[in-house]
């Protein structure tokens, strides 16, 4: 197997699908010859042409709605929202239309679309281009929400998202675009709703999403030196959430730290923590559930402040130790 980057994995998943299925097309801002703000679609317009790699005006509400309408009438669009912050402008179409159409129409009609969008801080892009707003969409019944953390996961999950007959919001992390892993050349699908145990351990469960998976793994390696055994679970999809894998792990370890980059207040970690507390794992909890998330401020510009905004490896180590009364 060869190693490719997360960015290449996303592109490859789309290209493979577009070669196979004429109904699949991508639309978004600057995705044509420019290749997308992060270069994900670079080279695609050359292969698939401007009809299927449809460069749009800066018009998030319009293109989101066009994606929904085309999905409703038989296409399988991939909408690239240049920054996930811009989902705020497209939310009417995503929340009020895409998510609800099937239900409102009594099961008639379906909206097979993928909204791909880069999120996260760490690039110095400051307050309006660095947010992690995935919790917003997890709140909406009718939407599926995916957050891959590796190139391998990105390719497999994007395939599953494209195959799904429902609107799927697919969060790509900007800082992960350049990370690599072994990725098969052929198309493959990783089921939505199946968590991945990225590392097995016995003392503390860390449920981490996106880039936090990598930070949790780093923290786990550090803690291992102190004899603390960490299990790292990557939910991969927030909706549907693989509750079983998380519960099983917490039953085993009795301690859990939930970590995401999104602002902690109202973040999806609260949902995971509540789910655990409501589950059979409750009786196995041997420490309060810990949550780590972004600070309650907009993402700042200054690099030190920006770093302080999101959980770092040291924060995760600290939190894990707190659950063990070792701080």
């Amino acid at each position, binding site marked *: 197997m060869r190693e490719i980057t997360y960015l290449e994995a996303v592109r490859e998943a789309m290209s493979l699908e577009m070669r196979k299925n004429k*109904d699949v*097309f991508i639309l978004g801002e600057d995705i044509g010859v420019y290749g997308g703000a992060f270069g994900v679609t670079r080279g695609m317009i050359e292969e698939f042409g401007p*009809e*299927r790699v449809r460069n*749009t*005006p800066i*018009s998030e*509400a*319009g*293109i*989101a*709605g*066009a*994606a*929904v*309408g*085309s*999905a*409703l*009438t*038989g*296409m399988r*669009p991939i909408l690239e929202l240049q920054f996930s912050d811009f989902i705020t402008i497209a939310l*009417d*179409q995503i929340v*009020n*239309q895409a998510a609800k*159409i*099937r*239900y*409102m*129409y*009594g*099961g*008639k*009609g*379906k*909206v*097979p679309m993928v909204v791909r969008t880069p999120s996260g801080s760490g690039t110095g892009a400051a307050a309006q281009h660095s947010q992690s707003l995935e919790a917003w969409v997890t709140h909406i*019944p*009718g939407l*599926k929400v995916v957050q891959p953390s590796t190139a391998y996961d990105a390719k497999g999950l994007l395939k599953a998202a494209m195959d*799904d*007959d*429902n609107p799927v919001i697919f969060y790509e992390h900007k800082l992960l675009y350049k990370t690599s892993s072994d990725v098969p050349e052929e198309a493959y699908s990783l089921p939505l709703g199946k968590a991945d145990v990225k590392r097995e351990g016995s003392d503390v469960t860390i449920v981490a999403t996106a880039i936090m998976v990598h930070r949790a793994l780093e923290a786990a390696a550090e803690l291992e030196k102190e004899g603390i055994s960490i299990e790292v679970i990557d939910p991969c999809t927030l909706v549907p959430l693989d509750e079983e894998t998380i519960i099983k792990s917490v039953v085993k370890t009795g301690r859990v730290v939930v970590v995401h980059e999104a602002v902690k207040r109202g973040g999806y970690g609260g949902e995971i923590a509540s789910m655990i507390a409501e589950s059979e794992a409750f009786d196995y909890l041997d420490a309060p559930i810990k949550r780590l998330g972004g600070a309650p401020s907009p993402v700042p510009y200054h690099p030190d402040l920006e770093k302080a905004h999101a959980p770092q490896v040291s924060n995760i180590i600290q939190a894990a130790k707190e659950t063990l009364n070792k701080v």
Partner: protein
Amino acid sequence: MKLKLTEEKLLAPKISNEKLVGLYKQMWLIRYFDEKVDEFFAKGMIHGTTHLAVGQEASASGVCALLDIDDKITSTHRGHGHCIAKGATADKMMAELFGRTTGYCKGKGGSMHIADVDMGNLGANGIVAGGIPLAVGSALTAKMKNLNYVTVCFFGDGATNEGSFHEAVNLASIWDLPVIFVCENNQYGMSGSVKEMINVDDIATRAKAYGIPGVVADGNDIIEIMNVTDDAIKRARRGDGPTLIEAKTYRWKGHSKSDAKKYRTREEEKEWRAKDPIKRYKQVLIDAGLFTEETAEELRLAAKKEIEDAVKFSEESPMPTLDDLLTDVYA
């Protein structure tokens, strides 16, 4: 050149005499449906909210008369008329308002979300301008898949102040999409008069900004509506892109079920009632010798009966069970 019904053969060619007479009954169906709904809301027999299009029957019937079954529409919160005009039956619509499983949306959509995807009705919409980008997407499908259908996008005057309208019209224009934007300007966005909220005399002029034709039509004259729609559809099918039609009309009822209509005068309402699109169309048909006063009365009563049957059907239909709550969230 505007076509006149009285000039033989000058009417849009695909419309047969039989269909023209049928449209008369359809307009009554639309009116009686909404009148009945009004009555039921007043009696508290159905809950939620609804928006009635009494007085606006001509634009719904006129536009849809020119559509094939493959053609699509997107509708609005004031959408019962569009729905009937696009071929929906009153019984399933009424059942939906009654919340019955026999309704178009199995009782889960209600008045604002009636859709009949099979008949090309992509749905009413509770969000002002919400359906406009959807229509553009539908037109995009037609273009990408080389399907020859057109998509008609109904919306009101209020929607043209939404960003979605401008974004969607621009997209349709730059991509030459086969979509017809039909703005039913009934003079009020809820309580907001177009005179206060829009600083152009004709909404149709907004088309200019996007490089597409904008046409003003008498929304209470079904013949005129059919004529301008015919032009727009032909343009769309040719691949020349969208048209914006502004049908000037008036809603006789309030915005929704509890509206004291303090924002307008009785005189204004009277003025518009005098322009009743159904009465006007009846006279056209009689003048053209397509039917008599007697036939017209028969058709009216038949429409009334159909609505009464729809009520009966709805009342006898089963309620959803609580098990239905979580079905159809995902495909």
